């Protein structure tokens, strides 16, 4: 474990050194397009309040869009996965609507909804909805017959069956879908911000690209990378905790 950590630190150090060498110390590349890491770090520090504000604004959109998807996709997925007749009816629809790239909804959402906030939340919601929904349905259908029989012999009611048996039984699938949803939601968030926002991480990158301020563009990209890293790290820890019962001693 320690060896891996050391290797990783060394690799990142080497990459930074290479980057600094070709940009800062020797200026082999056009400094307008390829800023040195020290310059980028400086800019990140300089723009820290802008970044903080951008992150907060981005997270607001991401939170509402994603939460809306979680709150609808999981309950609907549980019901559709459980009711055979409903599943048979919904399945073709799922196969048609699911794979549509959610980015194509952006222009329509802008025309349809009054504000940028509404339309971006809507697009994030659509993008996050399908992977969660499809995986919840698949998760319910994969719950072992014996588990369901066991619950039925206890005489559990409908709601208890959904919340205490099917939901935890489908959870491994749901959490996999949740990862895809989160990544998609983030992609859509930044895409939407690049199109219509006046704040946020996507906006930052697009705004300074328009001024050909590429050092700031690179700074923005690095910040986005860091934000995604932290977000996914948090998600994975949460998922591991939710599935702690799967581990064998």
């Amino acid at each position, binding site marked *: 474990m320690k060896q891996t950590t050391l290797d990783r630190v060394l690799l990142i150090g080497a990459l930074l050194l290479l980057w600094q060498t070709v940009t800062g110390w020797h200026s082999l590349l056009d400094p307008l397009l390829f800023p040195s890491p020290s310059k980028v770090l400086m800019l990140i520090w300089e723009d820290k309040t802008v970044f903080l504000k951008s992150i907060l604004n981005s997270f607001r959109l991401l939170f509402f869009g994603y939460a809306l998807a979680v709150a609808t996709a999981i309950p609907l997925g549980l019901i559709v996965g459980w009711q055979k007749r409903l599943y048979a009816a919904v399945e073709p629809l799922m196969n048609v609507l699911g794979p549509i790239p959610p980015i194509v909804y952006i222009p329509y959402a802008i025309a349809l909804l009054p504000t940028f906030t509404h339309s971006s939340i809507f697009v994030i919601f659509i993008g996050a909805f399908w992977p969660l929904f499809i995986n919840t349905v698949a998760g319910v259908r994969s719950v072992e017959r014996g588990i369901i*029989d*066991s*619950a039925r*012999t206890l*005489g559990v009611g409908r709601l*208890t069956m959904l919340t205490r048996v099917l939901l*935890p039984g489908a959870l491994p699938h749901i959490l996999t879908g949740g990862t895809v949803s989160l990544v998609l939601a983030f992609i859509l968030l930044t895409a939407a911000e690049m199109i219509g926002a006046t704040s946020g991480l996507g906006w930052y990158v697009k705004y300074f690209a328009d001024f050909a301020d590429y050092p700031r563009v690179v700074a923005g990209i690095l910040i986005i990378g860091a934000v995604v890293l932290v977000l996914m790290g948090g998600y994975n820890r949460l998922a591991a905790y939710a599935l*702690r*019962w799967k*581990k064998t001693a």
Partner: protein
Amino acid sequence: MQLENVSLAYPGQNPEHPSLQDITLDIEEGEFVAVVGPSGGGKSSVINLLAGLVAPTGGQILLHGRPLTGPGPDRAVVFQDYSLFPWMTALQNIAFALKQVGGASRERARKLLEVVGLSDAAAKYPSQLSGGMRQRVAIARAFALGAPVYLMDEPFGAVDAKNRIYLQDLLLRLWTEEKQKKTIFLVTHDIDEALYLADRVVVFTPSPGRIRRIIPVPFSRPRHRSHLLRDETYIGLRNDILSLLQAELIEELEAVEGGEGI
């Protein structure tokens, strides 16, 4: 509990070889009935029928004179596997069952775990328990329901020999200790287990699943394994059941292979 000419054919199954055919069996209240037979002989189907998980395609099942309509907490079921919910700890599994019958109480759940000797495992998930421990929790959960009827589908089938003996005695202890004797319907492929535990042994033969014979077990309780194994009657009964099962196997081989290889 009565089964009257019960038949069961699953959808898509050859109607000439249903899982069960013409099963008629009366089970007394407080009786311990064991079913033995080869695997695939429809034994488990009887459990599913009595549990109300499937409906018979012919005949009817009566519980206290009324037809059975579905699963319910008046019949506790222990399966060979899958009885427990893997996402609940041992204690939560029992507490969940208690809640279904309106008796939710941590204290009672703890007491039940204590009875099966697993107080220390309360906070453990089924994946952290051995097969034998899991079945102990499953039995504790079944008794938590306080149901008058217990249906057990090879509950000790996946447990090693030492633990099986422990679990059998545990089951007998719980069964005899209850003031109001429970009815137990146990499916097993272990003839010794059936003879040691049951009041009557029902011998099943496969395809279609039918009752071959019902044998009353004459030994008084409490029974002792070591005495039984030397008892002439016991050895006789054991051989009878064995030859019943083998005769059926031989017949089947004759039918399928044209008698070759016997």
